[in-house]
């Protein structure tokens, strides 16, 4: 592979299981929460990968694994070709400089007893080589300016800022070490609509300015579509479908993606009548007890016997292999197909699903 097209991040077979134990003296493992259960993706330079999925699908665990906040049970994460999964000590610290995180909740992710200057400058305490001591204050002011905050407010405390401003502080902190990759876990979901747009625009601008690659994790499909170049849809610890934003949003072939997209309320009352919705029955199964075969089959209206026996691989489905159309992208379904245009409301499955 030519160095120019080499991905910044390459994730393969990523697994994170949290053991469930019983007993005090003799702790036995009685099972595991399979939070992430075999995830593969790549992130290109300057690219934004959106990861969408509902609560419990493992998207936040993926974020923690990427930032080395958790150790994977199996699988590997490569940063610019180098396997960073097993790193520790100094080598790990060096890599971490390049992968920074923005958290969801700007109310709990900033230390209330530290000033904004100390929060944004803290990365320099941990990585003193990044900026000489005399420089740091100036750099922090610059960072505040870059994210649209008043540099004069460097001595204020987090509670003196609104939610949107706090999220800007979190973003400034993530940028302090000039990372190549920023992992943002639900960065705007705690914000009001009018403030969300400001933060999304800021992240867009910073990406161009600092040549950042983003892993953007969110449950809000319209936000992800706006910001992402490629999208991965997760369900119960696995990616079930992935492709360019147009491939996923306009030509989804996995039934879960189709249901998810059809459930998003569209801010247009005229669409109310013509919108075909797929209402899934039941709830997401527990990650301690994942269904055999295809993990979506318990809520899927297409499920047949094969789905319980065979795990569908994440690949271009046979039906679309060799076809040039946008439907030919990776989809982990035995019976992948595009929805017929127009009315598909009869696919809606009401009633007594499991759970």
């Amino acid at each position, binding site marked *: 592979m030519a160095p120019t097209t080499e991905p910044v991040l390459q994730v393969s077979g990523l697994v994170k299981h949290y053991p469930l134990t019983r007993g005090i003296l003799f702790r036995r493992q009685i099972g595991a929460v399979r939070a992430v259960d075999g995830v593969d993706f790549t992130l290109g330079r300057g690219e934004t990968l959106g990861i969408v999925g509902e609560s419990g699908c493992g998207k936040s665990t993926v974020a923690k694994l990427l930032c080395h906040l958790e150790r994977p049970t199996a699988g590997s994460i490569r940063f610019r070709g180098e396997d960073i999964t097993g790193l520790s000590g100094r080598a790990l610290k060096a890599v971490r400089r390049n992968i920074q995180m923005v958290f969801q909740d700007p109310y709990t992710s900033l230390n209330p007893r530290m000033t904004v200057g100390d929060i944004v400058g803290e990365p320099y305490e941990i990585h003193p080589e990044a900026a000489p001591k005399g420089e740091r204050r100036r750099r922090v002011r610059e960072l505040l300016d870059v994210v649209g905050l008043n540099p004069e407010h460097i001595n204020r405390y987090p509670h003196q800022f609104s939610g949107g401003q706090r999220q800007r502080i979190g973003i400034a902190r993530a940028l302090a070490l000039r990372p190549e990759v920023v992992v943002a876990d639900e960065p705007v979901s705690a914000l009001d*609509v*009018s403030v969300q747009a400001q933060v999304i*625009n800021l992240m867009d601008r910073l990406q161009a300015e600092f040549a950042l690659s983003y892993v953007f994790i969110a449950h809000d499909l319209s936000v992800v579509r706006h910001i992402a170049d490629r999208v991965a849809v997760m369900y119960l610890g696995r990616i079930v479908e992935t492709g360019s934003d147009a491939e996923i949003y306009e030509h989804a072939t996995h039934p879960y993606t189709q249901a998810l997209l059809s459930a998003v309320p*569209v801010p247009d009352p005229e669409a109310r009548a013509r919108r075909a919705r797929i209402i899934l029955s039941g709830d997401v199964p527990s990650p301690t007890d994942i269904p055999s075969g295809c993990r979506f089959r318990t809520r899927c209206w297409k499920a047949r016997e094969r789905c319980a026996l065979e795990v569908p691989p994440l690949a271009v489905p046979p039906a679309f292999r060799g076809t040039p159309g946008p439907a030919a992208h990776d989809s982990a379904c035995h019976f992948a197909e595009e929805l017929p245009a127009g009315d598909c409301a009869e696919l809606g499955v009401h009633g007594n*699903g499991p759970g």
Partner: protein
Amino acid sequence: MLLEVRELYVEFATRDGIARAVNGVSYGVDEGETLAVLGESGSGKSVTAQAVMGILDTPPGRITGGEILFRGRDLLRLKEEERRGIRGAGMAMIFQDALSALNPVVPVGDQLGEMFVVHRGMSRKDARARAVELMDRVRIPAAAQRVRDYPHQFSGGMRQRIMIAMAMALEPALIIADEPTTALDVTVQAQVMDLLAELRRAYRMGLILITHDLGVVADVADRIAVMYAGRIVESAPVHDIYKAPAHPYTRGLLDSVPRLDRKGRELYAIKGLPPNLTHIPPGCPFHPRCPMARDVCRTDVPPLYEVGADRGSACHFWRECLHGPDH
């Protein structure tokens, strides 16, 4: 009119002074009608609803003016006992966070049944039978077995169904749902909104849906009231408002939503922040953030101008906003 709120004022005593949360709000909802009250945090949408339900924390809250007419009777003049009779049987509320709204140490069946014991004087046994019926009606699978389960044993979507069942129990004429699906995933949100719409139709209830989600509003509402800084800034039938908003705040909100069917380069963003309720700007409270603001906006509070059939906008320049091509 089933419920009519007239010129309601609510304020809170805080350490930083008096927070004026609701400043002259009027709205109404008819039987079988769905009114969406749209606003961001701090807009006063939930406080108004709490005043209607009579569950406002007083102190620090205080209703300083206005009337709340339910079937023509002013609720603010009733004794607490009389209001208790209306709560549950006349109107009921669904909260955002079912886990904290339900009692964690009482089985859900008993919590549902309590409605019948208290309001209808039923025996525990009959009340439990009614609880199972209700859980069945909101499509909780295996209701008869699950009636003894505790709230934490249910998923988020199922808990929200229990909240709905509890609100529906006495078949009230009015339901107030405060962000009923905000804490839920989209696929579950769709299930719950569907259920709510179906029950509302079946019982011809009035529904006040409090939300910040423009998508949810477009899906279910008949009318919208948009709130900002404790005032209604625009009120209109749902189709009109999405087609042509008559207030720059509504317009800004609509334009700042990223839409699946419109991937633009840059999102429109309303500049600045919502106002601090202890220091609401003089004149039009939206003027510091408004792209159309002029001198008059800084001094004169705009009344709710009548801008069309059944439509109002609290903007001095609503004509421009309604017909203007751009911001």
